[in-house]
């Protein structure tokens, strides 16, 4: 079974600075996907970024980028130029590849990020 570990229950950062959230996972699969979801106080789960395991290039979405280290089974999220609106819970999630279908997401327990003015 796959597991996802987020070792930082809480983090804080000053506005405009950069912060990195850690995520490690355990799997015997070779083909899979990794995700970061953001959950602000509104409770909505928002997809931040997605990475396919077969791609060596790290995914980026505007101020959000990942450092994907497949051999180390590590998938960290870097937020640049942090904004107050980035304050949220961040969840790392794993999904194994399913040919022509879909699989369940396996979530970590989350990191609560606070951006301070």
């Amino acid at each position, binding site marked *: 079974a796959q597991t*996802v570990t987020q070792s930082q229950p809480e983090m804080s950062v000053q506005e405009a600075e950069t912060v990195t959230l850690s995520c490690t996972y355990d799997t015997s699969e070779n083909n899979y*996907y990794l*995700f970061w*979801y953001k959950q602000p106080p509104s*409770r*909505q*789960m*928002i*997809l931040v970024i*997605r990475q396919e395991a077969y791609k060596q290039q790290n995914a980026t979405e505007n101020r959000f980028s990942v450092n994907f280290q497949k051999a180390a089974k590590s998938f960290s999220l870097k937020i640049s130029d942090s904004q107050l609106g980035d304050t949220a819970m961040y*969840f790392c*999630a794993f*999904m194994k*590849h*399913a040919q*022509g*279908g*879909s*699989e*369940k*997401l396996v*979530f*970590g*327990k*989350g990191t609560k990020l606070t951006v301070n003015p």
Partner: protein
Amino acid sequence: DAGITQSPRHKVTETGTPVTLRCHQTENHRYMYWYRQDPGHGLRLIHYSYGVKDTDKGEVSDGYSVSRSKTEDFLLTLESATSSQTSVYFCAISEVLMPNTQYFGPGTRLTVL
């Protein structure tokens, strides 16, 4: 916006009563999912559906049933609610062109007294 709505958004009920939560989507997605979110556990899959009348169990399915009689609606039923089912429930869909990515509805907060 993946066009997902959940109803009700909040519900308080008593132990032993039946409860049905509804997930509605407007974009003809094939795959739909129900997750629950509890402190210290992240989100965990309850049931999922891969088409009309096609459903399967997730990792925490005990005490829950689901039905999908039409593409746009996926219902989650607690036949006899218990306090351990107090949680936030999320519906999710995955899109045909990107089946390995899931998008979530706004969630339903359920309290069982």
